[in-house]
């Protein structure tokens, strides 16, 4: 039986409004980048009730796309498992991180 709780790490982008959240999913879909809306976890005490979930490897592409679209991301959060406990850890914008790499 598949272990339903073996969830790989993922990145979340939270927004100040559901309108922005919807826009982010539509923009990602139109750009062919895999991402979907999920309820913002309770541990993430910020943003509206919806967050965009994506694989960490596409976070920078989505950050760039949303920046171009004028959609403001309120928080970037990495969801990972540490010592068997699911954690949500605030991150710098992948765009900023990428810029800093340069």
């Amino acid at each position: 039986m598949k272990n339903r709780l073996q969830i790989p790490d993922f990145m979340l982008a939270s927004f100040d409004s559901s309108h922005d959240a919807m826009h982010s999913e539509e923009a990602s879909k139109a750009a062919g980048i895999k991402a979907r809306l999920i309820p913002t976890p309770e541990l993430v005490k910020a943003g509206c009730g919806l967050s965009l979930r994506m694989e960490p490897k596409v976070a920078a592409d989505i950050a760039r796309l949303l920046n171009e679209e004028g959609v403001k991301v309120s928080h970037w959060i990495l969801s990972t498992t540490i010592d068997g406990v699911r954690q949500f850890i605030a991150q710098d914008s992948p765009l900023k991180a990428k810029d800093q790499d340069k």
Partner: protein
Amino acid sequence: MIYLDNAASSAIKPDSVKKALCQAVMRDDLGNAGRGAHESSLRALQELEAARSAVAEFFGAEDSQVAFTANATMSLNLLLKSLLKAGDHVISTCSEHNSVLRPLYQLEEEGVALSFAALKDYSFQVDVDSFQQLLRPNTRAVVVNHASNVTGEVIDLAACARFCRAHDLLLILDAAQSAGEFSIDMEADAIDALCFTGHKSLYGPGGTGGIVLGSRMADVPLKAVFSGGSGVRSFDKTHPAEMPALFESGTANVLGLIGLHAGVKYLQKMDLSEVEARLKKLTRRFYEGVKDLPAIKIYGDFSDPKRRRAPIVALNVADMPAGVISDILATDFDIATRPGAHCAPLMHQALGTSDQGIVRFSFSTMNSEADIDKAVAAVREISQSLI
């Protein structure tokens, strides 16, 4: 999709409601109710008043004491802000939804004092006996939700009513999570004001709801919160103070109310005792299916199968965030549930679930036993992942 988020909104409506709504949209004779005497205005008024009579009968109230609003939140805001003034004290509970809490907090800033009853020790029930300790000389009203939208626990309404009558307080009931699930009677249950929404267990469309006043409200002064078009006394500078116009400023949502009327008729035709029995059976089937699964924690008292409760089972899987579990249910099993805080912060503080949230399964008469069995199988599979 298996839809088990009926406590948020009953997405699947009875065929009779769907038909009534479709037919209403196709009509060309629904004008502005109460804003003229031509045929279209009268037809709209006829539909509005037919819906009003049906809702009044449903709750055992006078037709004139039913005012339509957009939802329970609007009803509660209108009623509480119309009734309460600086210097008043209100008793409420930790079980309330933000639709009660936030208007009360707003009123607190204007000088209304608030007290909240906690849950009984080691229980999911509101401690109604503690109202006595919370009573003050200036206590004006008790505001309670009939059923918790988080756990489905039903408050001891008879005890609330006895307390209110003994101390000459107004009993205001938030019936958002109970109206349509079992019988409520304004007089028999000694309710002074009831706020409901149409889009949950009354099976109406979104954008419908209302305020129902009991006989003891006749002499209680209420002020208009919104004012504007009423269709009557146009040269007065103030909005009419009489029910239902007091709470019905602006054009009525006649199309929506036709749908609400059809929802109420559906429940009346089925008989509410049958509705309650059916919902109880579905809820109990789900509860029995998941209660002994590993790592499942249930929030609610199911010890007495006969006890009245809203058709909700609230649970968590070990310490996994509720949102993660709800997302697995949606994406892997195509089952709609509601995770998170459910707009009930005090309840989550009382249950110790502020950080984790809770996964809420909520049922309607449109669900089948097969839906329940699939949901149980999904929870079993998720819980076994922890072994």
